[in-house]
């Protein structure tokens, strides 16, 4: 199938704004009379607040308000479960929790005042490790968690501090292990990792004289944010306008209200617009990083090397609050992939999300998938070796097939994992003889079900003949707006400059926003459908204007043409006669997909690396990433998603760790919390295994969360291949490799 606009490697529609500095992010919002808010955070991981003395701070120059929990309504908030106070109420549960907030004429003055607030704490026993928190003697962080609004009753647990326990099952796990000849048990751990977006969270609130609340916020789900904000500031949703700004990347981390409720309270108290921008230190101390996770796998394999049973226990450290988890079961969805890309008849997966006195955890691109894939794909290599099987053949033998079920997913069709894996292997040096000592190859395979949810749009034929596409989804950087433009232009046979994508949240009641790689799938479908309906309206209005019947007109060359006469109308002309005379033609559409298609997408990666045995340092020599893709709507953006995700996967595998000691994050700026830079990138080969059969418009598939997932495991497997040392914990730092090698060679003499 060939298209006009689909498949074009187009630059971003917001490109000129972004390269000239005109694009406005929340922190760029400047309002007359605007003042600044800064928060005082808890230095203790778990303590009662005995008293807070703000008197001195209030007297300081430029200080306009100092608020503590006593000044706010006694309400909790969260992306789903409401378990987190806006300012700590009587008790702090992590180092970095907000205790008081100051508004001042400038940020320096606000900082001046913070040091003068005196808080007296009474320390309480704290627990930092999720497994420790699950023990009977552990201090309880939220004794009343069952009473929180939207707490997921179906997933309550009697285990201390477990706020959600979700089980996924296929077949009968006991039967599965009974069939197995060999049973393997492995445990893996991954650390907290910050999303690393370069824009720290920012919020601005301005209250109009009539009480209307204007909000700017780095949040990818503005409609949902409005709903959440309405609850926690007790203002009806209709009185709140969330203005959409550019978002300096999300990667799952920008779905909460963060400081917006505080901005509101300060604005209300002072009568001035209030801005709060977190410092990056605050981001690292009190953002919502990827969950530290431990994964226990129990695998049953037959004599022939067939996997027949997989039991998994995945423990997610939620940190002090579950407030940053958006899904209804308030747990991490990626746990359901604990059987990997392998057809396994008997599966039982238990995911526990556990409170502990650390920074609250949140979503980060492919939430849970990376952690679990690292475990699953490492264990595949370990089992193969133990059974004396080739690790590639062992995988091939067990791959998912059409008709297989995946936990928490559908019965699969169009399974293309074998092709994807073969493509990755073929593009790599897998089948070449091992070149040098201390070099190794590793592979890993993952899959990801496409995200579901609700999407909305409004399409309008404007009087100048252009189409305005309104979406409540902000551009978080993934290129969503460009893709929506392409889909509408393609559907309406228009040139790109005739389609303008604009954002607005006011006119939509609900919306899932950006996330879970759903924008192209759900958001694409809704604009495609709306465009189809708009075309019908255009043709009808055109026919009316041309004085003929609807079935006598066609849309050709951007005009409504009466096929029998020469008569035609431009879109601008149609617009003027459309609808009820003056107003433009308009379609407003909503689409809510609760079930995904019976299709998933696969990624296979091969990593080649070299280990310096004297230092443990790892150098990536080559990375091949192969993707099972449908029609690619925008190759430039598609490849960008692959490359960006891959480097985040490399960070997860080799570099990144939000280090904590007794709940205190010790990597508190980007000088210590290292993100990969331009000199750290590995040589990369991308292979696209294309077939036009995706579920998204024009048979596209999702890509946003694909390349990040298998990299950690592929690296771990390559390290093992290179030097014979198996790592159960990420990241695999030079230091860990060095000591493991010392031990290793010590053992062998």
């Amino acid at each position, binding site marked *: 199938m060939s298209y006009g606009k689909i498949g074009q490697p187009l630059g971003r529609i917001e490109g000129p704004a972004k390269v000239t500095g005109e694009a406005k992010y929340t922190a760029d919002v400047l309002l007359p009379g605007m003042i600044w808010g800064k928060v005082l955070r808890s*230095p203790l991981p778990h303590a009662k607040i005995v008293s807070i003395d703000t008197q001195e701070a209030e007297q300081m120059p430029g200080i306009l308000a100092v608020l503590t929990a006593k000044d706010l309504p006694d309400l909790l908030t969260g992306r789903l479960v409401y378990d987190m106070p806006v300012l700590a109420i009587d008790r702090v549960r992590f180092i970095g929790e907000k205790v008081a907030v100051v508004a001042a004429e400038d940020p320096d003055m606000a900082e001046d005042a*913070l040091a*003068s607030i005196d808080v007296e704490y009474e*320390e309480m026993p704290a627990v930092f490790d999720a497994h420790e928190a699950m023990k009977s003697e552990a201090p309880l962080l939220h004794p009343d968690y069952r009473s929180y609004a939207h707490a997921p009753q179906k997933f309550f647990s009697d285990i201390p501090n477990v706020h959600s326990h979700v089980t996924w099952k296929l077949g009968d796990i006991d039967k599965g292990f009974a069939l197995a000849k060999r049973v393997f048990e492995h445990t893996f751990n991954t650390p907290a990792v910050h999303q690393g977006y370069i824009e720290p969270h920012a919020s601005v609130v301005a209250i109009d004289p009539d009480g209307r609340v204007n909000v700017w916020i780095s949040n990818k789900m503005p409609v949902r944010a409005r709903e959440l904000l309405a609850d926690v500031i007790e203002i009806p949703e209709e009185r709140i306008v969330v203005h959409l700004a550019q978002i300096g990347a999300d990667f799952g981390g920008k779905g909460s209200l963060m400081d917006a409720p505080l901005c509101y309270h300060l604005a209300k108290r002072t009568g001035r617009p209030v801005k709060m921008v977190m410092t990056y*230190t605050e981001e690292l101390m009190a953002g919502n990083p990827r969950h530290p996770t431990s994964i226990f796998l129990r695998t049953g394999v037959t004599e022939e090397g067939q996997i027949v049973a997989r039991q998994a226990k995945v423990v997610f450290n939620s940190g002090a609050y579950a407030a940053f988890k958006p899904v209804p079961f308030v747990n991490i969805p990626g746990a359901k992939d604990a059987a990997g890309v392998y057809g396994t008849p008997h599966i039982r997966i238990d995911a526990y999300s556990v409170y502990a006195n650390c920074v609250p955890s949140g979503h980060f691109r492919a939430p849970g998938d990376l952690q679990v894939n690292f475990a699953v794909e490492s264990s595949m290599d370990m089992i193969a070796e133990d059974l004396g099987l080739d690790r590639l053949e062992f995988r091939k033998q067990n791959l998912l097939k059409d008709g297989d079920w995946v936990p928490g997913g559908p019965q699969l069709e169009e399974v293309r994992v074998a092709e994807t894996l073969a493509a990755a292997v073929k593009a790599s040096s897998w089948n070449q003889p091992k070149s040098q000592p201390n070099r190794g190859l590793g592979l890993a395979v993952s899959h990801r079900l496409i995200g579901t949810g609700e999407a909305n749009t409004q399409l309008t034929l404007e009087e100048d003949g252009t189409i305005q596409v309104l979406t409540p989804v902000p551009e978080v950087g993934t290129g969503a707006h460009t893709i929506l433009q392409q889909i509408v232009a393609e559907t309406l046979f228009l040139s790109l400059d005739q389609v303008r994508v604009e954002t607005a949240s006011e006119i939509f009641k609900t919306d899932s926003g950006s996330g879970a790689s759903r924008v192209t799938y759900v958001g694409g479908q809704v604009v495609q459908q709306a465009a189809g309906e708009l075309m019908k309206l255009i043709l009808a209005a055109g026919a009316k204007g041309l004085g003929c019947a609807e079935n006598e007109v066609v849309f050709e060359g951007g005009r409504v043409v009466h096929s029998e006469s020469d008569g035609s109308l431009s879109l601008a002309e149609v617009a003027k006669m459309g609808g009820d005379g003056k107003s433009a033609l308009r379609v407003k559409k909503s689409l809510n997909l609760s079930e995904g298609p019976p299709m998933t997408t696969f990624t296979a990666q091969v990593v080649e690396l070299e280990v310096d045995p004297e230092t443990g340092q790892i150098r990536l020599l080559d990375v091949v990433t192969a993707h099972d893709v449908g029609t690619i709507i925008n190759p430039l953006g598609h490849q960008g998603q692959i490359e960006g995700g891959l480097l985040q996967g490399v960070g997860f595998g080799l570099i990144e760790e939000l280090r904590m*000691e007794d709940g*205190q994050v*010790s990597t508190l700026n980007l000088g210590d919390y290292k993100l990969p830079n331009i000199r750290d990138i590995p040589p990369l080969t991308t292979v696209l295994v294309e077939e036009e059969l995706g579920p998204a418009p024009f048979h596209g598939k999702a890509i946003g969360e694909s390349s990040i997932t298998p990299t950690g495991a592929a690296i771990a497997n390559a390290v093992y291949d290179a030097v014979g040392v198996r790592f159960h914990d990420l990241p695999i730092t030079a230091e860990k490799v060095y000591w493991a090698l010392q031990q290793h060679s010590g053992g062998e003499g």
Partner: protein
Amino acid sequence: MKFEQTCTIAAGPLKVWNFLIDMENVSRCLPGVESMTLVDEDTYEGIFKIRVGPIALKFKGTLRVEERDRDNWHVGMRVEAKDRRLGGGVRAYLEVDLVEKGSDETQLNVKLESHVLGKIGEFGQPVMRKKTDALLQEFARQVSQELTSPDYA
């Protein structure tokens, strides 16, 4: 952060004990203590200064003796102090144990568990650890020196 220091002092345990339960001696042996005043039987208020390069910390707070177990030669004291200018503080528990090695020889074991809080804890934690370790070492050295100096009776 946890620290331990051990040293041997050429003095009997009773002599060392009597020296250590006098907070004036303790404060003198601890570098950086600027003042220490008795509030009640077991509580002292004081000021303690430490420098890390250009960063000058001045902690003001209390020291409370919480354990004084003469039979087991064990003292435990809690320190809570704040630096208001910088915004941060320390919370620490210091344990001193004496082990009789002979009538004229005592092993001094010092154990410290400390938390550096707020701004001070956020930055330079590793250097603070080193400094604290050095401080404890110096404390043990000073105690030993004073006890064995001819001036101390």
